[in-house]
C-alpha cells in the first residue's frame, strides 16, 4: 500500500465535500492511504496574493513545513487553487532561499522548510502516479454512452513553468482518465478558459459572462455533462448555471461532476455514497446515458442530383 500526504483545503469541508469524500473512496480502492496534514491552514487563495505578497508565501509555507514532517515523498491536493499556491510558493522559495529563511524562521514554529515533498494536484497524481492502466483495471461499471466535456480551468496547468503538468492550452489527462472509465471525452475548446473564480461573489457579472461561454461551448461539443477537478470551477459552473440560463434564455442542463465522482461510479461504488444530491443541476439525465451506446453514424449517400449541383456550384 502506498501512502501520500493529503491537503484537503477549506472547500473540502464545505462547497466541495463530495470531491473530498470521493477522493478518499477512490484512493482507498486503489490502495493508496491518505495522511491528512494535521492542523493545516488556508493557502490564502486569490486574496492573499492580491493584497500581500509576503502573506501569499507565508500561508502555504506553514503547510509545506507541516507536510514535510509526515515523511511521505508526495503530497496530493484536490483543490486547484490550493495546489497552485503551494506550487508557486515552492518555486519561489527554491529560487530565493533567503526569503525561505526570513519567513521560515520568523513565523513557522513547526520547523524549517527543506523542500523535499513533491506537490501534485489530485488529477496529476491519478494520471502520473496511479496511471491509466491501474484505473482501467479497477472499472467494473463502464461509463460507455456518456459524453463528457473535461474542464481544467486555469490553475491546474498554468503557468507551465510552475505546474509542469500537461498542456497549458489543450490538456488531455482528464480526458484520458474519463475514457479509461469507458466514457467519451468530447472535443472541447474552452477546457482551459477561466471561469471567473472568486468574482462569483465580488462581481458576479464577470462569472456569468465567462462561465456562460464555457457552458455554451460544452453544449456545442455534444457533451451530456462537464467534468472538473476544481471546487471553485464546479461551484461556478453548477450553482450559477440556473442564473446564466435565465439571463441568456438558453437551456444548458449540464450537470458538473468531479472526476473522482465518476471514477467512484465506474469502480462500482453505490451511487448513494457519491453525493450527487449536492449537485444543483440534476444529474439523472446524464447518468441515464450510461449504457446507451449510439450506433456508428451510417454514411448517407447523397442523391445524384445534389452531388451534381454541388460540383456545379464549385
Amino acid at each position, binding site marked *: 500500500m502506498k501512502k501520500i500526504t493529503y491537503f484537503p483545503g*477549506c*472547500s473540502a*469541508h*464545505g*462547497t466541495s*465535500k463530495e470531491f473530498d469524500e470521493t477522493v478518499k473512496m477512490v484512493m482507498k480502492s486503489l490502495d493508496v492511504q491518505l495522511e491528512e496534514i494535521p*492542523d*493545516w*491552514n*488556508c493557502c*490564502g*487563495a*486569490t*486574496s*492573499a*496574493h*492580491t*493584497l*500581500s*505578497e*509576503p*502573506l501569499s508565501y*507565508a*500561508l502555504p509555507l*506553514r503547510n509545506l513545513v507541516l507536510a514535510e514532517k509526515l515523511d511521505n515523498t508526495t503530497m496530493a491536493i484536490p483543490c486547484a487553487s490550493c495546489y497552485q499556491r503551494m506550487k508557486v510558493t515552492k518555486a519561489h522559495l527554491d529560487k530565493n532561499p533567503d526569503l525561505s529563511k*526570513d*519567513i521560515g524562521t*520568523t*513565523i*513557522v*514554529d*513547526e520547523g524549517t522548510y527543506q523542500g523535499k515533498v513533491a506537490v501534485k494536484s489530485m488529477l496529476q497524481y491519478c494520471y502520473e502516479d496511479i496511471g491509466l492502466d491501474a484505473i482501467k483495471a479497477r472499472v467494473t461499471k463502464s461509463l460507455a454512452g456518456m459524453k463528457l466535456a473535461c474542464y481544467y480551468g*486555469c*490553475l491546474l496547468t*498554468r*503557468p*507551465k513553468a510552475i505546474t509542469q503538468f500537461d498542456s*497549458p*492550452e489543450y490538456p488531455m489527462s482528464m480526458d484520458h482518465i474519463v475514457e479509461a472509465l469507458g466514457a467519451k471525452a468530447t472535443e472541447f475548446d474552452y477546457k*482551459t*478558459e*477561466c471561469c*471567473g*473564480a*472568486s*468574482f462569483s*461573489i*465580488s*462581481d*458576479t457579472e*464577470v462569472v456569468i459572462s*465567462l462561465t456562460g461561454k464555457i457552458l455554451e461551448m460544452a453544449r456545442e461539443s455534444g457533451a451530456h455533462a462537464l467534468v472538473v477537478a476544481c471546487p471553485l470551477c464546479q*461551484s461556478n459552473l453548477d*450553482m450559477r448555471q440556473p*442564473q446564466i440560463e435565465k439571463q441568456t434564455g438558453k437551456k444548458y442542463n449540464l450537470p458538473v461532476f468531479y472526476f473522482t465522482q465518476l471514477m467512484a461510479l465506474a469502480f462500482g461504488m453505490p451511487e448513494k455514497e457519491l453525493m450527487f*444530491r*449536492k449537485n*444543483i443541476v440534476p444529474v439523472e439525465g446524464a447518468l441515464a446515458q450510461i449504457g446507451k451506446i449510439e450506433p456508428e453514424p451510417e454514411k448517407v449517400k447523397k442523391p445524384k442530383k445534389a452531388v451534381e449541383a454541388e460540383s456545379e456550384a464549385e
Partner: protein
Amino acid sequence: MITLGLQEKNTLLTDVNKRSGANVLECYQCGKCVSTCPVSNFMDFPPREIMQMVKLGLKEQVYLANSTWFCLTCSACSGRCPREIEIPAVMEAIRHLALEENYTNKSAKVKAIRKFHYIFLDMIRRYGRSYELRLMVEHNIRTRDLFKDVMLAPTALLKGKIPLLVKPVKSAKAIRRMFKMAEKLEQKHK
C-alpha cells in the same frame, strides 16, 4: 523608441520591473494578451495598454486603473506572449505598489472586489481557514447589497453546499504571527 529616452527618469518602469521580475520593455505591443484575456473587456486599459503606459511612466493612470483588480491571474496571456513576459506578475506588482503608495481606485466595482479580498483575509486571520457563509454575508453587508444571491441560499444551504460553521485552526498563534510578519515585510517596502 521614445520609451528608451525616458528610461532613466521612469521610476514606474524600474519599480514594476524590479517587483515583478519581468522586463516590460520587451513588450512589442502585438496585443495577443488582449485577445486572450477573458476579462479585458471589463478593464479600463487592457494588458497591452498597461504595458505601454508603464513604458511611458504614466504612474497615476496605471496605479488608478481597474485593470489590475480585474486580472484573474489565469496566466492565459503569459502562456501565449511571444516575448514570454509574465504579465500577471506585472499586474500584481502594479497592484501591490499602488496599495503601498495609497493610490485607491474608487469605482464601485473595484471597491467590491477589494472588500471581498479584505474580508477573506480577515477571516483567515480569525479562523485560519475560509468560512464561505460568513464571507458571502459579510460581503453583502459591506457592499450594501443585502439581497444579492439570496435566491441561491435556500438550495445551497439545503443541499449542504455551504456549511453553517467552520472548524478553526488550532494554532491560532501561528496564524497571527504570519499576519504580523507580512505586515512588517510590507512596511519595509514603503
